[in-house]
């Protein structure tokens, strides 16, 4: 499999339509491995991957870990509290030290936008952005796009609403960039305090009222409301948010009949998403998690497995 000429996966910004399709197609062919009795192939045997998480994460970290292990790569996990960061070491120095141990890939989660870009500049190893500040979370967007394609058969031409704190969401940013590239019609929605300036210049429509935004949509994607944003004056109370911006079963009725509802997790049930919606027939939230493993396997394979002669099966 060729056509993937990147050392790193920094964001959806850097990917072409062809490359996105290649990742999704590769995920398609790898998904079946996770359904076998013996969920392991030797494709990345002898490769080492460091999961470097400066921020807490359960889902993404576990998903990368599982993906790497199913491809037989050796994995190692570092977190901010166990790294020398607590001793005041800079990110660049940490990177140089890790590079000295010659890993093949670094999976980085960091609270600063652009941190993976900085790491990628100083390391020979590939860098995967597992979420940087409020910038991007490309593997989440790719698994979302995989899930949409799986359920709808296509992405192009679909009407998609992304609802929540658009300004501070890396999931939203990566999905906006990726989905518009793939030809979807994206509307972003949420209170004006959470809407970034000039977001329309990213090629999306803006409808502040989520109940209007879901009208006629094929896909409704909800974002987690970070409770600490309340102290930043972005909304008065959770109660007020739920009353005016939360999505319940009643609101979903305005969408297309075959709508799918997505959420990157972890959910605040009863805040941005009602339990009835989260567990409803149109919810694909757990499919997203399952697909996350396949998509991440595809990315690992394309970044460091492509040159090997080993077949995927």
């Amino acid at each position, binding site marked *: 499999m060729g056509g993937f000429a990147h050392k790193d996966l920094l964001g959806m*910004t850097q990917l072409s339509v062809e490359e996105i399709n290649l990742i999704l197609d590769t995920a398609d062919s790898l998904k079946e491995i996770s359904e076998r009795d013996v969920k392991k192939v030797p494709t990345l045997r002898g490769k080492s991957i460091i999961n470097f998480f400066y921020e807490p994460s359960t889902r993404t970290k576990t998903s990368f870990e599982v993906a790497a292990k199913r491809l037989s790569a050796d994995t190692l996990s570092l977190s901010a509290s166990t790294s020398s960061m607590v001793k005041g070491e*800079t*990110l*660049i120095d940490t990177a140089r030290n890790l590079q000295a141990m010659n890993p093949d890939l670094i999976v980085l989660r*960091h609270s*600063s*936008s*652009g*941190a993976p*870009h*900085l790491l990628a500049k100083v390391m020979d190893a590939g860098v995967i952005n597992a979420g*940087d*500040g*409020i*910038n*991007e979370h490309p593997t989440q967007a790719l698994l979302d796009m995989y899930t949409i394609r799986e359920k709808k058969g296509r992405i192009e031409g679909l009407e998609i609403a992304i609802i929540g704190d658009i*300004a501070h969401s*890396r999931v939203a*940013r990566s999905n906006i960039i990726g989905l518009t590239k793939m030809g979807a019609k994206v509307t972003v929605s949420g209170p004006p305090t959470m809407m*970034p*300036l*000039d*977001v329309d*210049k*990213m090629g999306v429509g803006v409808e502040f009222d989520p109940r209007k935004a879901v009208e006629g949509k094929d896909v409704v994607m909800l974002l987690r409301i970070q409770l600490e944003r309340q102290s930043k004056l972005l909304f008065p109370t959770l109660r007020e948010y739920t009353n005016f911006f939360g999505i319940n079963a009643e609101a979903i009725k305005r969408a297309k009949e075959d709508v799918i509802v997505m959420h990157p997790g972890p959910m605040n049930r009863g805040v941005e998403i009602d339990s009835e919606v989260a567990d409803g027939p149109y919810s694909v939230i757990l499919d997203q998690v399952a697909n996350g493993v396949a998509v991440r396997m595809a990315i690992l394979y394309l970044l460091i497995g492509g040159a090997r002669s080993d077949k995927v099966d």
Partner: protein
Amino acid sequence: MTKWIKDGRIVDPVTERVEQLDIIVEGDRISKILPCGSISRGSGEIEIIDAGGNLVLPGLIDMHTHLREPGYEYKETIASGSLAAAAGGFTAIACMPNTEPPNDSRSVTEFILEQAKRANLVRVYPIAAISVGQKGERLTEFGDLKEAGAVGVSDDGRPVVNTELMRRAMEYARFHGLTVISHCEDLYLSEGGVMHEGEISTKIGLPGIPASSEEIMVYREICLAKHTGCPVHIAHVSTAESVALIRRAKEAGLPVTAETAPHYFTLNHRAVMGYDTNAKVSPPLRSEADVEAVKQGLKDGTIDVIATDHAPHSPLEKEVEFDKASPGMIGLETALSLTLDLVKERILTLPEAIRKLSLTPSKILDIEGGRIEEGREADLTIVDDSAEYVLTEDEILSKSKNTPFIGKQLRGRAVLTMVGGRVVWQRAR
């Protein structure tokens, strides 16, 4: 010894003329300005400086420099900053008080002047803090600071939040004849922001600083200038609305002056794409429309001065995550080239450009300089305005190398800098 500066094209910001003339310097002063060819080598020792058709300017004056000493000598010292200034064609620089300790007392002001004397390169004029420790609580001793050598007061880098304090500072500064220089930033609005809030911050996921955080404070200072009658100088203007507010204040006859820095008319917020920490400055690089408005403000005279806001930082502050990086870029060695581009673009005439880099700052700070006249101090800069060069890190004389202009093609640079009749710096051929 007598010096004969021969065949230079002299730029006079007072008369706005550019003329081929010879200058005779005796001791520390200009003794004669004569038509070319009217001087013959007489008796006695005379040193000939052949300007060979290059520009001869009044020594450039930068009214907004950070020299980092005392406290941050690993970024810049008064000596290294003075050398960078001389290489950039500056014969005088005014240094901001945000050192450690801040320049809020006679002893720090005297220390700066003492170090400048030791460096013995360019004239250094300290700007003192408005508030003790730049904490925005109590006024510093303006009178004592002025007597010690301070030429202005500013809490640059840590803007005055308390409007009452700013009012009292202006009232009191007026009594002592000190210029108040304001770094305009509403800290509540800019909190957490690391670049201009707009299309690019939205695209690349960096927290934004709205243009209004500057404009609100510009308007505050204008209101206070009107109320107190005290002149106020607005530092590093970066937005279209700031330019419009200052234009209106000037039309109303208020004592308001303003400066901008070369990066605000050369670069816009797109320079931050790729998370280049060298493009992180305070105020941030703004939109294309803001850059156009700043140029218009320079052209119509709303913006009086071009200052560098030379802000040295080491890799410790710059080779880090974008949001953790300190804001600022060095500018002493690139300001002249970037300003000459405005002449090429016909935004400014050559004398207008040089006036904003010499005569006007000297008037605002009430210091010597900015004029080429018989009997004046011989502070002169010779500039090869046709020189084209690519800026390299190696040739930067500032102790810090934080500038996004490394690797960029620039035009026009100083070849000789004279302070008080003494050649303090000359570019190797």
